[in-house]
């Protein structure tokens, strides 16, 4: 049960920005995902919440208490590290016990908690094995047990699933969410995998180069990205970008290459002759063989079959790649010339220089 409040957190590593002026509120019982490419500061943020790193400036507040100067174990947090780190020379049970060694709990209480945790995570048979004798998924479960046995206020996870194979990741992902919802513990989960973020998070905080780009529900981040970066990072296959231009006049219109469309009241505040970046999801692109006056031409670069649908990758005349989702039956040899277009209602607009959304 904890709210976390980060106020103006900064931390630099040499020349590279670790985190810059980060403000973030995490609600009680929430599963917040810190999402971003490597080096974006998400792990740094997590380490600062944990107390493993001291911020250069700013405050970490947990439940209205300023914990910035408290060592990690006095913050009542638990952390699962990358690839489910455990003490390699200790058995599963000893690893779990290490979490309670400094807790000051009585012997019976400790034994009760360990067996209770082992039941919750179904790891009874793993307790007497060394981590090197456990599979990736089993290690993950033991590491999770080690974290929850403390009954922490906050649960911090640093890419715990990154080293596992895809099928296992899928299973463990839902197990973790299920556990978090049952225990109603605030959880901060760091990942660079946007699918993991979309499927697990109550809210997602997208970070880049030490800054928070956007924080919001998966729906917000996917459908209403605040910046070009978020639009390009979230979603698979990723969003497509086309340079365009707003033509002012009585009823403003948008031009994108040979395409032109009515804006129907959108972007009303933008003056004419403004360059914009148009972003369109792959499922909103229409690909066809013969074009008309208002279509864009492209050539087939590759076709990826996903079973229930296919992704066609097209090369635009300016060599940029565009991805569109097409029916699974579509056959398109590499090099074929195709036409594509989209509805203006499905497009999002961004300022090409600042990267901010224009709504």
């Amino acid at each position: 049960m904890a709210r976390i409040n980060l106020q103006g957190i900064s931390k630099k590593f040499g020349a590279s920005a670790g985190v810059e002026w980060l403000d973030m509120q995490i609600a009680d019982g929430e599963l917040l995902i810190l999402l971003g490419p490597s080096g974006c500061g998400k792990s740094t943020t997590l380490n600062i919440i944990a107390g493993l790193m001291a911020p250069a400036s700013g405050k970490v507040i947990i439940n209205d208490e300023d914990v910035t100067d408290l060592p990690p174990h006095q913050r009542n947090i638990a952390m699962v590290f990358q690839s489910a780190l455990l003490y390699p020379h200790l058995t599963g049970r000893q690893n779990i016990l290490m979490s309670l060694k400094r807790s000051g709990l009585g012997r019976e209480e400790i034994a009760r908690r360990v067996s209770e945790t082992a039941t919750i995570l179904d790891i009874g048979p793993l307790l007497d094995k060394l981590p090197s004798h456990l599979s990736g998924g089993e290690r993950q479960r033991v590491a999770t047990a080690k974290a929850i046995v403390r009954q922490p206020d906050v649960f911090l996870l640093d890419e715990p699933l990154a080293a596992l194979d895809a099928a296992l990741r899928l299973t463990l992902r839902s197990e973790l969410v299920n556990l978090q919802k049952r225990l109603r513990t605030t959880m901060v989960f760091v990942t660079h995998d946007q699918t993991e973020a979309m499927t697990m998070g109550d809210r997602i905080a997208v970070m880049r180069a030490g800054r928070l780009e956007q924080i919001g529900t998966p729906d917000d981040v996917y459908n209403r990205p605040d910046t070009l970066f978020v639009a390009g990072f979230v979603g698979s296959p990723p969003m497509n970008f086309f340079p365009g231009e707003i033509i002012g006049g009585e009823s403003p219109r948008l031009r994108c290459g040979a395409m032109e469309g009515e804006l129907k009241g959108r972007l009303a505040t933008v003056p004419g002759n403004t360059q914009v970046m148009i972003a369109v999801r792959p499922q909103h692109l229409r690909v066809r063989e013969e074009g008309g006056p208002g279509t864009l031409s492209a050539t087939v670069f590759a076709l990826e079959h996903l079973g229930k649908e296919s992704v066609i990758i097209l090369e635009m005349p300016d060599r940029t790649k565009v991805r569109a989702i097409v029916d699974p039956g579509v056959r398109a040899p590499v090099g074929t010339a195709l036409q594509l277009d989209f509805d203006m209602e499905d497009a999002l607009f961004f300022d090409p220089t600042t990267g901010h959304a224009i709504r």
Partner: protein
Amino acid sequence: MAARSKLWGIMFVVVALLWTLMPLYWIVRFALETQSEVSHFPPLFFPPNPQPGAFLNILGFNYTTASGILLPASGQASQILLGLRNSLILAVLVTIATMLVVVPLAYVFARLDFAHKGKLLGAILLAVSLPPVSTLIPFYSLYVQLNLVGTLAGLFIVTLTITIPLVTWMLMGFLKNLPPVESLGRIDGFSRTYIFMRIVVPMGKSGIVVAAMIAFLFSWNEYVYAQVLVTGSNAVTLPAAMTGFLFQVPQPAHLAASLTLTLIPPFVLVFFLQRHITELNLVDPIR
């Protein structure tokens, strides 16, 4: 294809084994023969009447062979016994002192960041790369003034200048590969000292044991400084004592026997610690 490369592999191993073991065998053979058997031409591949006379001689005992030849005790026996005692004391002390310094030192270099780390590391590497001979004369003139020539204490200090940098360098690489348990320990509420003493050291015990073994072997085998600093004194070590054979009536069997004697402690050590040597890949299997 696979069978052929396997055959090459076996041949390579056989050649490597012969290369390593033949000289050892030759020494052991000498040690088990009498003077006349040693000087037989062509050389005898197997000792015709193997007997432990040479070993007893260098330890100060007479021995009469089955055919009635008396093999008298070696004049070097007292030096050998003294050398054996000194070498053991020195090697044990050097190993303990080295490990007390090196384990924390290597840990700090391997796992923590601090100012001027690179320069200090460079100093260690420099110490590793310096040939011992280059510091021999400075040490000698220093020791003359400090009255440390011919003392075990003097040899102890000099040997540490070899073992500490070398073993630090070796152990650092091992400790670097251990998983980042420090963060885990801090989350669990342990102090840095506790994490080092109760988590890192037990976790890294294989590497530490092997490092200790290397310190022991370096001290045990150290010859250059011993020859200059302690030969002829009460602090003589086994390698230095053995050179005494070179200045006497040639007794190849005695020399061979004392060489064999120096091989025994390292062999015993490696035999009992081989489990740790093979266990060195204790690192996280997933990383």
